[in-house]
Every structure is written in structure tokens, then in C-alpha cells.
């Protein structure tokens, strides 16, 4: 047991913190206000190797694993939560899944661009009428011999209208439920028949694009089927067990940002002749935030450690995601209270924190779903994977 970071991990943390402070922090408020996705940040992340975790070096991987990845994502998300999506959307989602299930040709063709930041990646599971119940999806992929034809629509897809390459899950054997879903690699720039509609009504995460994708007779070449035909549900669950780390880490980082802000404010703001931090009730709030923040971070580290060691990590991932989300929402709520009226003003980051925190309760498995996973594994109803 050792709680210290290795020398490399320390360097990764320093570098990512430095990067986030110099390359992301100056634009946070401007991009929030304009709902603007600053594409070049992803390019820079790619160039610096921040999108290449647990990917073989021959495809552009950075030679590091999960632990280093969460350490880096944490620093980035702490500065601006929207940017947590970059690592999931490119690396832990499509690149890692293609690396696990893809043919050598697929790996060579798609992974380097996802890892270098040349492409914006994405993954599309959710539909208007299919959320938590993934197997109920309706989008179809019809086998036409040398190609598939995709019809239907996906909803709430992160990166959607900006994406170059993404994974799309669709039904290839109607009526077979989870056993009738397949996974496809979609090249959005070269596939006619896909309309991409930005969603502008989000409560938060404003600089992170989200979209509806409408497929109308979109032709996907045979060689873009990822993994076995009708084997998509398993791939999807495998992928979610990785991409969820983006939520878990991002949420833990957000709770840390709230705590740091609240501590600074409590030390500076004076009422009744003393800093408000001296009031026992503020101390109670700070203590709660600190405790949950610390616990969230170590649950994330534990899940990353299990993954690096190729041990079952589904329960640990769900625990990290669930707990960190709760911590983030609680911390954002408390931060807003501690900042008083300024907390309610957009001059301070509290409102953004609260908006961004709320996403975590829904994305990548709602809190209910993760509660079910944790309990189901604990009770022996399902194996830990």
C-alpha cells in the first residue's frame, strides 16, 4: 500500500495542472457564455499525449495507463468540467474499444487520429426512447451484403455534431434484445445520410457539444463493423465500464474545485467581525466537503488501479462514479451557500459548478443504475467484471 504518486505520475499531474491553468482557464468564462467548443484545446491535448492512455505505442499511445489518465483528467476537469469529455470521447471510448475489439486494419485506420486529437471522437448509444434500458434501442442496421444501412436516431450524443469518428450501436437482429445489437465505426465526414443537430437547451456543460444524430439510409461499409455481429451489447457494457471513469474523475475533480473555492472564500469573507470560516456551521460544511472529496478521489484511484492491474473493476467503477457524483452535487450546493449572494451571481463560478455537477447524476448510467450495479454485485446477483 502506498498513497504517494510515482515520479512520473507527479510529473503528469504537474504538467496537466499547468496545461489546464494556461490553456483552458483563460477561456472558461468566455466559452461558458458563448457555449463555445474550443476545438484547438483537443488538438493540443492530443499533441501532448493527453489522449493516449492505455493504448499501444504503435497506435500513438503515450505508454501510460489508467492511473496516469485519471490524474491528468482530474486536473483538467478541475479547471473546466466540460473538458473531462475529451479523454472519454476520444480515448477511453472509441480508441480503447477499437483497440480491444478491432481488426488490425481498424486499429491502424482509426486509433492514431483519435489519440493525436486529429479527430473528435464520440460514442452513440442513447435514443429518444432508450436511455438506461440500452437493449431497447431502435436504430437499425440492415445487412446488405457488402455494407450495412443505418436508420434511426441517436439522442444526447456528446461531441455529436463535431465528431469525425465515432462508435454507433444499432440493432442488427430485431427482437433479439441485447443479443441483437452491433457496434459500428462511423466516419462522419464521409458518410452521407447523417443529419447532426446540435442540442442548445442543456442546463450546463455549455462548451461541450451535445447532439441529436439522425441516420437516414446511411451506408456503413462492412469492414466498419466492430467486433462480432450481434455482439455489440457486450462491447457497449465493456466500453461504459471505461468511459464511466471520465464521469467519476470529472465529478471528483469538480468537488475538489468547489472545496478549494469554498475554503478560500470562507477565509476571506468577514461577517460579525470574523472570517466566516470561524463559524462552526461553515466548518461543518467544509468538513463534509473535504471528507466526500477525499473519499471520491480515492474511489477513483482504486478503480483505476484495478483496471491497470486487469482485475474486475465494474463495482469499483460504479462506486467511484456514484459516490463522486453525489460528492460533486453536494459540494456545488454547499459552495453556493458558502459564497452567499455572490454564489448566486454568475460573477463567481458557483452557478457553473452546480450546473455541471447535475449532469453526473444522469450521464453514463444514472445514479439509480449505478446503485443497482453496486448492490447487484454485492448480493451476488451478477459477477464483477
Amino acid at each position, binding site marked *: 500500500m502506498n498513497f504517494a504518486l510515482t*515520479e*512520473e505520475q*507527479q*510529473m*503528469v499531474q*504537474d*504538467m496537466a495542472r*499547468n*496545461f489546464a491553468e494556461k490553456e483552458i482557464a483563460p477561456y472558461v468564462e468566455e466559452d461558458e457564455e458563448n457555449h463555445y467548443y474550443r476545438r484547438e484545446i483537443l488538438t493540443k491535448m492530443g*499533441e*501532448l*499525449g*493527453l489522449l*493516449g492512455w492505455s493504448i499501444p*505505442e504503435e497506435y500513438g499511445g*503515450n*505508454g*501510460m495507463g489508467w492511473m*496516469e489518465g485519471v490524474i*491528468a483528467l482530474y486536473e483538467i476537469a478541475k479547471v473546466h468540467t466540460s473538458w473531462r469529455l475529451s479523454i472519454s470521447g476520444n480515448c477511453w471510448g472509441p480508441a480503447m474499444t477499437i483497440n480491444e475489439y478491432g481488426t488490425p486494419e481498424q486499429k491502424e485506420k482509426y486509433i492514431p487520429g483519435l489519440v493525436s486529437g486529429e479527430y473528435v471522437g464520440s460514442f452513440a448509444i442513447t435514443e429518444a426512447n432508450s436511455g438506461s434500458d440500452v437493449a431497447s434501442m431502435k436504430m437499425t442496421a440492415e445487412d446488405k451484403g457488402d455494407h450495412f444501412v443505418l436508420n434511426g436516431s441517436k439522442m444526447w450524443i456528446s461531441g455529436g455534431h463535431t465528431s469525425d469518428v465515432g462508435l454507433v450501436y444499432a440493432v442488427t437482429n430485431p427482437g433479439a434484445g441485447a443479443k441483437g445489437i452491433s457496434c459500428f465505426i462511423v466516419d462522419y465526414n464521409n458518410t452521407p445520410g447523417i443529419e447532426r443537430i446540435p442540442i442548445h437547451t442543456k442546463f450546463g456543460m455549455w462548451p461541450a457539444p451535445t447532439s441529436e444524430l439522425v441516420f437516414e439510409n446511411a451506408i456503413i461499409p462492412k469492414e466498419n463493423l466492430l467486433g462480432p455481429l450481434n455482439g455489440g451489447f457486450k462491447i457497449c457494457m465493456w466500453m461504459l465500464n471505461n468511459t464511466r471513469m471520465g464521469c467519476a474523475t470529472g465529478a471528483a475533480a469538480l468537488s475538489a474545485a468547489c472545496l478549494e473555492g469554498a475554503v478560500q472564500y470562507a477565509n476571506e469573507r468577514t461577517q460579525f467581525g470574523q472570517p466566516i470560516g470561524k463559524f462552526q456551521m461553515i466548518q461543518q460544511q467544509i468538513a463534509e466537503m473535504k471528507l466526500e472529496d477525499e473519499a471520491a478521489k480515492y474511489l477513483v484511484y482504486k478503480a483505476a488501479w484495478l483496471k491497470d492491474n486487469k482485475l474486475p473493476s465494474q463495482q469499483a467503477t460504479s462506486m467511484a462514479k456514484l459516490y463522486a457524483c453525489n460528492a460533486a452535487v453536494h459540494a456545488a450546493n454547499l459552495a453556493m451557500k458558502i459564497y452567499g449572494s455572490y454564489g448566486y451571481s454568475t460573477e463567481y463560478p458557483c452557478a457553473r459548478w452546480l450546473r455541471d455537477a447535475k449532469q453526473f447524476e444522469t450521464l453514463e448510467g444514472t445514479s439509480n443504475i449505478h446503485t443497482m450495479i453496486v448492490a447487484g454485485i454485492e448480493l451476488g446477483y451478477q459477477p464483477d467484471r
Partner: protein
Amino acid sequence: MNIVVVIKQTFDTEAKIVLKDGQIDPSGVSLVINPYDEFAIEEALRIQKKFGGEVTVVSCGGPRSQEAIRTALAMGCDKGVQIDETALESVDEYVRAEVLAKAISEMPYDIILGGRIAVDDRSSQVAVRLAEALNIPSVSSVVKLDIENNIATATREIDGGTEIIEVPLPAMITAQKGLNEPRYPTMPGIMKARKKELKVINPADLGVSDLSAKMKVQNYSLPTPRQGGKKIEGEPAEAARELARLLREEAKVL
């Protein structure tokens, strides 16, 4: 072209300085490469890209200075040398310059780069003393550097303007903000850094004849905390008179 960069590990510029028993307490403070030295590292890597050769980064410091050297290696420098200061009884700019000069004189170098100033003690002495000890020219506070035919053309900041100086190599150049924008270490760079050579030198083995510090720090003190402002009430003419009195008698600036 063989390039040597001398770097110092300093406190993070945002660190809160605490005195303990009259000494600066480094525990719990994050340490970084002196920001001006980062410009020197960046310039070295750019020179190397143009002319080839090797970049060796040398630091005189305690055990934690290896972190700074590793970061420089992660940025792309080829080799690191730490002159382990813990073996020395006392250090000052003289001692550091002497041991650096001795260590560097044993390696091939065409140019030596460093920061214009270290943000901790702000003495701006080591680099110029080093050049003196090696008997090479030095140019300080450089904001632009061109090298051609073994001549360095350095633009340096002077009061109210700039000055361009040509020096033959080998020369010592110190970097000023504006020289370049230092790169971040890349992730693959960090992985490679571990495998790069980092040599630790005991200063006693360098054969410097006199290793005793020439300067002794008498006392460290923190700046007095800022006092709250003072509001002068009353009629404007009267208030102005009172202000003038305070400036003369209390602030003693008039």
C-alpha cells in the same frame, strides 16, 4: 552543437513562504524549475533542433532537484547532471558557480544557457560568475537569440530599449521572459525521461580548491503584512493638508 543548460529548482511562485527557526521552511511547498530557466531549456531544445547535438541539463541542488532535472529531461533534454549540494557545508553563488564551472569544463559545450534570475534569491549571479570561471563571454537578459557560423547574436533588454550583442561561441546566455514560450513535457516525454542518464556528482570529487562560501546570510525576514488603507475625512482642503502631513511625517515620502 553541444548545449548545456544550468537550472535551479525554486519554490512555486505561488507558494506561501514560511520561516521556521529563522530559515525558509521548504516542507510541503511544491517546487518547480525556476521559470526563467524554462526559457533557457526551451531555447536549448530549439537550438538543438536546428543544429543537432546534445542538450545536457545541470543543476546544483539537494535531492529534490532531481525532480527538476527529470522534468527537463521530459521536456526533451538528453542527459542530466545533479551536483549534490547536500554534501556541502554552506553554499552561496560563489560555490555554486565554482562547482558548476568545474563540472561543465569536463563536458563538451558550445553554448551554455540559463535563466536571467532565480525567482527565490533573485541574485542573478551564478550564470555570470560561471562564465567568468570558464573564461567565456556572457550576455544577460536575452529576448532573442540567433546563431550562425559559431557567432551568437543576442538581443537583450536594456533600460528603455534593446541592445544587440554579437559574441563568439562558446558563450553563456541568460534568458529573459519573451525569449520563447516553453513547451510542456509530453506524456511520452515523461515516460522517456526515466530511461535517460541522470548523473549525480559529489562536489567534493570535483577538485575545487576552495569550497567555502564567501557570503553568509545573516537573517531572513518576511515582508510586513500589508496594512489596511486609511481614509481621511473632512473638507477637501483640510483633508489635503492632513494627507500632506501624513506623507511627510508618517510615510516619510515627502
